[in-house]
């Protein structure tokens, strides 16, 4: 059976009454007239009654129903009686189901129509204030929980702390090794090229030792941990929020901060300085490899490096590691605990955790450097 093209025609029977005749196959692959073509014709007739005739109708699918629903809505809006008794039985039933519930009234409240509208300054300021308030409240709660922990009254389980240490520490060795060796080599290479102009290549050891200890070792470790562990914390806590586990903890009378946030944060506080020392060591080794390639013997490199090594450089690095650990844990856990309850929200929380953590890290690093420079440490 060959398919007939879908067509419609409109016949005015008498004043105010018309018949809409539909014929042919109204189905996928055919392209019948859109309702927007029929509408002006209907409007020209000043109808109060519209009947449909489907006696010549062939195959039909949802396309026909979409067309008829538009006719129905138009007639309802114009106060025209719409009579579809001339259509196949299934059509009549489907239309009855589709029109059983009134369409939702148009929104009176305006939603921001584009991303540009969402940049409106008032809205941004409001969101920023909300965010700052939330972050401060969270930091305050964590501080109070730490005080309770110090007093031995917190519901923090040692076994959780141990597990998080294991996840954050040994599992991160490989990635930390790779990044810190490479950063050490980059530092050495950059420095060596410049120092060569003055014939002072051997001072590359000073550059690498001081650079790694004070700055690059801890910063690279922190960035890796923000992406690895901070995001994991946000995803874990966000999923627990979705799964009503955080509700369950709260209604058990346990503070989610003590039970979930503290062990994660303490694990990072313990692990970060250790990873930083490890990264410092590997970075200096990496620098040594490049220095060796430039004709500096290992003995020279080590002897020269020793002159630059001082306790204060190591201490500055370790202090930063502690500060960064707290910041990464707060950014990750805050994003997770305040996450929404959908899979999209958990993804958003993880993104949020990493972005916030990196911003915190850079700002804190700059602040610490300025303070130490003023104090001449």
């Amino acid at each position: 059976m060959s398919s007939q093209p879908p067509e419609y025609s409109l016949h005015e029977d008498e004043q105010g009454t018309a018949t809409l005749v539909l014929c042919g196959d109204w189905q996928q692959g055919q392209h019948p007239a859109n309702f927007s073509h029929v509408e002006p014709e209907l409007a020209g007739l000043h109808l109060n009654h519209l009947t449909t005739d489907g006696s010549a109708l062939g195959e039909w699918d949802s396309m026909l129903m979409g067309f008829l629903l538009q006719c129905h809505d138009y007639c309802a809006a114009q106060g025209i009686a719409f009579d579809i008794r001339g259509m196949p039985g299934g059509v009549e039933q489907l239309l009855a189901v589709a029109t059983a519930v009134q369409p939702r009234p148009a929104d009176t409240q305006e939603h921001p129509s584009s991303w540009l509208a969402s940049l409106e300054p008032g809205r941004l300021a409001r969101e920023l204030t909300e965010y700052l308030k939330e972050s401060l409240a969270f930091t305050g709660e964590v501080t109070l929980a730490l005080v309770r922990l110090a007093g031995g009254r917190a519901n923090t389980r040692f076994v959780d702390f141990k597990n998080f240490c294991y996840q954050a520490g040994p599992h991160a060795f490989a990635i930390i090794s790779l990044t810190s060796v490479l950063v050490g080599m980059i530092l050495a290479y950059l420095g060596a090229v410049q120092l060569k102009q003055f014939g002072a290549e051997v001072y590359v050891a000073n550059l690498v030792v001081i650079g790694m200890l004070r700055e690059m070792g801890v910063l690279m470790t922190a960035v890796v941990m923000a992406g690895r562990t901070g995001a994991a914390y946000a995803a874990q806590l966000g999923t627990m929020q979705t799964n009503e586990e955080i509700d369950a903890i709260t209604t058990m009378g346990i503070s989610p901060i003590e039970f979930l946030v503290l062990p994660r944060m303490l694990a990072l506080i313990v692990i970060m300085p250790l990873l930083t020392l490890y990264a410092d060591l590997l970075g200096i080794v990496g620098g040594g490899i490049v220095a060796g390639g430039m004709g500096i013997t290992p003995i020279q490199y080590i002897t020269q490096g020793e002159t630059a090594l001082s306790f204060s450089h190591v201490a500055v690095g370790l202090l930063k590691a502690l500060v960064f650990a707290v910041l990464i844990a707060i950014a990750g856990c805050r994003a997770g605990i305040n996450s929404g309850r959908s899979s999209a929200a958990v993804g958003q929380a993880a993104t949020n955790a990493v972005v916030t953590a990196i911003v915190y890290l850079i700002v804190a690093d700059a602040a610490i450097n300025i303070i130490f420079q003023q104090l001449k440490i």
Partner: protein
Amino acid sequence: MTDTNPQAAHIEVRDLTMAYGTSVIQRDLNFTINQGDIFVIMGGSGCGKSTLLKHMLGLLKPSSGDILYSGNSFFQASESEQGAMRQRWGITYQSGGLFSAMTLAENITLPLELYTRYTPAEITDIVAYKLALVGLAGYQTYYPSEISGGMQKRAALARAIALDPDILFFDEPSAGLDPISSRLLDELIVQIKESMGATVVIVTHELPSIFAIANNSVYLDNISHTMIAYGNPTDLRDNSTEPVVRQFLTRSAAAAIEDKP
């Protein structure tokens, strides 16, 4: 456990209004749940049943009004008093709410470790007993993701009754369960309730469960945004003056059509 005087008001909801931001979910809710009741919160989808439960659990703060437990306001209580009240509750959540990073035994052990002075050996025995009560004997070392949905609900019940609570809350306990598991869970709820003398609050719209176990109920309407019926569900089905409540309880099509967001 407290003495059970059957006519004493255990939970009172007073002039409660709940809202998310500026949109009111339900207003002016007033009802009392007596000691030993099996109380059902019912209503169409999206009417705020689970939101009401979250308020009763103190997870959300009311816009106005109060909820009293044995005559004491929950929202005016201090944090430690709230904690003490919560220790007398057992809750199962819609999605179970089991800690997915812990085995079933660890899930049930947690409240026992926190709030009792049992020795570890005693706790192991109690955990085995609670799991046996819900028909999960021997599943101690399983993780929640390793068992079926119906088993998760029962495991959540085992955790909820770990501390022999005075009040048991259930959020849609039979959602997603087949009719037989759902009926078995209902029976389990009644048996546990009767043997422990607890008050039970259930959020559900499963009619068979409602008629089988509830002796009191409240109906939340999602059009007028308030409660329009309060009483025994069988009485409400036969005698309610609100057509929508009768339609809901007799499963008439007209009620389903009105189910708007």
